């Protein structure tokens, strides 16, 4: 049976093109190409010079596979700027008067983000919850600047924030952020540094009429203008349940030399080491510590001091309920240390393995810590940078301070279940046994619930 005669012999069709196709494939892979034009279509308010850095690499591609790889990388970079909703890549041969035989045109078709976006979300911090309303203007002036206004209303704190973000063109990792604290973040080898200036207008008030007089004395307005520097080295494989790696973060803050009436030097550090043991369990050791030195003869402000205790630090004690107190209100301290030893294991019998069950861990912990105020025999009216050692020794001396921190240690042990929320937060339900309780501390023995971001 013959079908309609289309004038084409089916045998010819099957055999003839094959050798041709193989020949074409060879040519495409090895052929040298030159990228002649890279276009970006769909730009509205974005300025082109900003994008030049992200797409410049595409010009260096030598063959077709390379062009595709580099175009893909450029697309990722464009998306990372945060100013486009969608980026599509089109690779085509060049046409036109100046077209080379092996010339290629790469076109990025982009859709820009809207000028104004709003957001409403709830946030969980260290044992407090809040509702956050945000208003964002992405790509305000065409160079990926972002202006964000945030209003946060929470159980403990109400705050307003205006933040301005501008990346350095060409070096997206180096950012300039004004929050309203201008800061720059830059990586340096393995470490990541942040240098920040912060200006804060604080108004402290008593929440209850029965607040102790020591707390009442601190009410009122103050202005803190501080420079701070943070170094962090993080080789962990995950922020929440790391199974290996270490984290070291050192932060120092100097207030008072750039205005304001809070004047102090504050140092604190955080160290965490993780090691995988038998059967998927992880041993984690962490150490926190900090010191606050007021400068210029005034005593430290309650808002700057360190606090210890609660489900996010030394478990088994009430929130921030360790250390110097007055009539039941805790005043915080000028020096502290806290350490924890944890053993994380997957849930017994591993229910929900590979899915929901992986978000949980059981953990056994041992926490210890201490908090105290430092007494300097006399306060120095100024600090010379090279003289810090002698200032610290001028008072009771570092030896006496270390001794104070080493006596009357509070510690606790227990076990519990931890749930991971996203990659940032944790919920914990623990059974704790506090020990080493000093008079004045408020304990929470038995079951304690905690939610937060930063845990000991």
């Amino acid at each position, binding site marked *: 049976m013959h079908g309609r005669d289309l004038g084409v012999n089916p045998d010819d069709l099957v055999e003839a093109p094959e050798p041709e196709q193989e020949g074409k494939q060879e040519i495409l892979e090895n052929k040298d190409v030159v990228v002649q034009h890279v276009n970006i279509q769909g730009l509205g308010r974005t300025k082109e010079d900003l994008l030049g850095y992200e797409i410049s690499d595409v010009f260096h591609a030598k063959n077709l596979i390379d062009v595709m790889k580099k175009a893909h990388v450029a697309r990722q970079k464009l998306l990372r700027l945060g100013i486009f909703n969608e980026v599509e890549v089109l690779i085509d041969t060049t046409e036109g008067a100046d077209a080379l035989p092996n010339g290629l045109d790469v076109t990025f078709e982009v859709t820009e983000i809207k000028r104004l976006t709003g957001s409403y979300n709830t946030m969980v911090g260290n044992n407090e919850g809040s509702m956050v309303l945000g208003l964002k203007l992405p790509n305000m002036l065409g160079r990926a600047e972002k202006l964000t206004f945030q209003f946060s209303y929470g159980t403990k704190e109400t705050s307003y924030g205006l933040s301005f973000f501008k990346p350095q063109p060409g070096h997206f990792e180096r950012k300039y952020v004004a929050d309203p604290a201008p800061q720059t973040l830059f990586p340096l080898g393995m470490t990541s540094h942040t240098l920040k200036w912060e200006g804060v207008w604080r108004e402290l*008030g008593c929440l209850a009429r029965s607040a102790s007089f020591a707390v009442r004395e601190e009410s009122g307005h103050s*202005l803190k203008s501080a420079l701070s520097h943070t170094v962090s080295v993080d080789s962990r494989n995950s922020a929440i349940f790391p199974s290996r790696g270490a984290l070291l973060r050192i932060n120092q803050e100097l207030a008072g030399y750039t205005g304001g009436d809070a004047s102090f030097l504050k140092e604190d550090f955080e160290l965490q080491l993780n090691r995988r043991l038998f059967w998927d369990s992880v041993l984690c050791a962490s150490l926190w510590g900090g010191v606050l030195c007021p400068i210029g003869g005034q005593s430290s402000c309650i808002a700057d001091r360190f606090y210890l205790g609660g489900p996010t630090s030394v478990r088994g004690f009430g929130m921030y309920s360790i250390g110097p107190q007055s009539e039941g209100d805790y005043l915080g301290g000028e020096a502290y240390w806290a350490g924890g030893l944890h053993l994380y294991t997957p849930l017994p019998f591993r229910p929900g393995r590979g899915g929901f069950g992986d978000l949980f861990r059981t953990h056994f912990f041992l926490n210890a810590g201490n908090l105290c105020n430092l007494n300097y025999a006399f306060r120095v009216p100024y600090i010379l940078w090279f003289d810090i050692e002698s200032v610290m020794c001028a008072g009771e001396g570092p030896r006496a301070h270390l001794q104070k921190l080493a006596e009357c240690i509070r510690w606790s042990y227990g076990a519990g279940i931890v749930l991971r929320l996203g990659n940032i937060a944790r919920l914990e339900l623990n059974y704790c046994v506090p020990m080493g309780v000093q008079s004045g501390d408020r304990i929470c023995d038995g079951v304690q619930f905690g939610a937060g971001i930063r845990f000991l």
Partner: protein
Amino acid sequence: MCGLPVQVVCRANAEYMSPSGKIPFIHVGNQVVSELGPIVQFTKAKGHSLSDGLDDVQRAEMKAYMELVNNMLLTAELYIQWCDEATAAEISRPRYSSPYPWPLSNILAYQKQWEVRRKMNAVGWGGKNLEQVYEDVSQCCQALSQRLGTQPFFFNKQPTELDALVFGHLFTILTTRLTSSELAERIKSYSNLLSFCRRIEQTYFEDKSS
């Protein structure tokens, strides 16, 4: 005046420390009590009172005069300090903002000024000018002067809360530096009030320093 030991402490954040936002306040043991009325009641509950010797009619009269002083003298003082632009700019704002660093000092001083002006509008003094305020103060002083007469104190021979309150206001007006001494002059024109202030100062305050 009750003969109780007291220590006066000046703090920049006294207004914020007070549980009701108003000064003066006292800190006794564990308790903090603010404003004259509650302080008087507090000391009375502890057994010390200046007005025990008064009968009900006199007590009512005393309360009426104290209200007069609060409504007139206190409001006039606030008006002159914060609503008169010359005084506010030269004296009140610099003094109020002195404990704070810039720019907090400017913000807080202006906040206080707006707050006082709102209050003045609320009590109906917003539309008055300086002359009318001085007139009101004069009238109030005249009423007090008539009540005082030639007695050493307002009621009998013993000081009462009214004496304490009047002394507090008059002494402050006479000793505070303002852009013009018109207010002090008007008070000095009532000689018995002037000698009343001197007498109380000498009896209760000067022997502390001697």
